[in-house]
């Protein structure tokens, strides 16, 4: 297969990036424009902008991996491996994932890349929205969902969200999303955060009631996916979807 190329603009001379790319078997090339018009499988690596994200989530690119020399975060292994295998990836800081609606960007690109998933894109988009919201709010920003049980709780929740999005450490934590097809009709989607993790066994086992105002996310994901699993101490959620099964959630 054609070797995956990592295009980078501002980090071309960064030795730390070079050594990390070498370790992952990724060939780095300089990118003079926002996105090269070359028909080779590639990912775009660097500081995020909305234009870069939109361009790199479309073919022939396999996604965008945020990398900055100053913040110490490593080049995402999961993203490079997913792109190498022909999937779609996104690594982005928490603040941008919140402001740019990472779910919408990723799901739209996924539907264009893998048209055979069309019938289950509704399931995928909702499950991905729940997973990304969990990763941002409870994972990287460490906010409890139990706040959102009444009007006052929502105000506090909103205040905590905005306050922590301004926290220079928390807002730079990455959210990684990878989507990799397998078999002929299935896709595996993983969402990784870099928060403190949680103990899955400590979560309530019983299903939430229809009137519940928090704690619905994981239950919905369980309903919408073929399989679902949590690893890395609660920081990584793995979901699989099967396009041969009837969608639980209709397309628009």
């Amino acid at each position, binding site marked *: 297969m054609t070797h995956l190329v990592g295009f980078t603009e501002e980090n071309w001379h960064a030795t730390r990036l070079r050594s990390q790319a070498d370790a992952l078997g990724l060939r780095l090339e300089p990118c003079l424009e926002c996105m090269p018009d070359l028909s080779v499988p590639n990912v775009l690596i660097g500081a995020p902008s909305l234009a870069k994200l939109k361009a790199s989530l479309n073919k022939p690119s396999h996604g965008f991996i945020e990398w900055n020399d100053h913040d110490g975060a490593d080049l995402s292994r999961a993203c490079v491996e997913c792109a190498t295998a022909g999937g779609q990836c996104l690594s982005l800081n928490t603040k941008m994932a*919140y*402001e*740019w*609606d990472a*779910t*919408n960007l990723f799901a739209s690109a996924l539907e264009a890349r893998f048209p055979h998933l069309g019938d289950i894109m*509704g399931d995928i*988009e*909702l499950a991905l*929205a*729940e997973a990304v*919201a969990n990763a*941002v*709010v409870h994972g990287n920003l460490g906010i409890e969902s139990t706040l*959102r*049980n*009444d*009007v*006052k709780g*929502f*105000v*506090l*929740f*909103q*205040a*905590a*969200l*905005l*306050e922590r999005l301004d926290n220079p450490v928390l807002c730079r934590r990455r959210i990684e999303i990878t989507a990799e097809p397998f078999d002929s009709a299935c896709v595996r989607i993983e969402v990784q955060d870099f928060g403190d993790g949680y103990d899955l066994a400590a979560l309530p086992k019983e299903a939430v009631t*229809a*009137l*519940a*105002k*928090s704690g*619905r*996310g994981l239950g*919905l994901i369980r*309903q*919408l996916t073929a399989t679902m699993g949590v690893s890395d101490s609660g920081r990584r959620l793995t979901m699989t979807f099967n396009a041969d099964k009837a969608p*639980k*959630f*209709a*397309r*628009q």
Partner: protein
Amino acid sequence: MESTTVSLSPPVCRLSGRLTFKDNDAFTRLITDLIAAAGPEVALDLSDLDFIDSFGIGLFLTAAEQFEGAGKLLTLKNPRGPVKRLFKLAQLDSVLRIRDDSESAAATMAVSVETQQRDGLCVTPPTTSGDGHFSVSLSGRFTFADQGRFQDVLTLAESENCQSLTLDMSELAFMDSAGLSMILVAHEVMTKRKARLVLQSPKAKVAHLLSVAAVDDILPVVQAPDA
């Protein structure tokens, strides 16, 4: 946080420094003292308050409830800098009485916070037929990041003037469980005071979320009369 009484009639107390979880005890004592003081209205001047965290906002919300319980009014005056920004972003002006002595500052603020807004939920101003029935239209995408934009709807849901509220969802393209939570809070608030929340004309993705989450059994969902 430090507090200084700057006026006794009407009572005005100026807060300075930083208001965080560390100030819980001192702030609670201050509020108790202010409620015990004479006069129906008390103001906290925040012009020298440099910083507030979400816990501090919780303290203000609790204080406002305590004042209300005592039949008194709490006014927060002249928030500045980061404090003002957080108040505005969290839309606290819809739940707390906030006043600014310099009106021009308020105009400047309104411009600066609207930069960097994301695409997402759009909420129309409420319309009413004058008999206690209100309608609001939602459009775009309603996710966890849009909760601040729904705050005005919650305020309306709490209003005694609002006997029924219809949320027109025909232009709402997508909603996640956090959006659903906001709607359920509005439903609960209205049910408690025997008022009614109705969801109107949800489209495919939103309708199916309501179905998957089994809330369409609990909340009245109707189609627009002319649909």
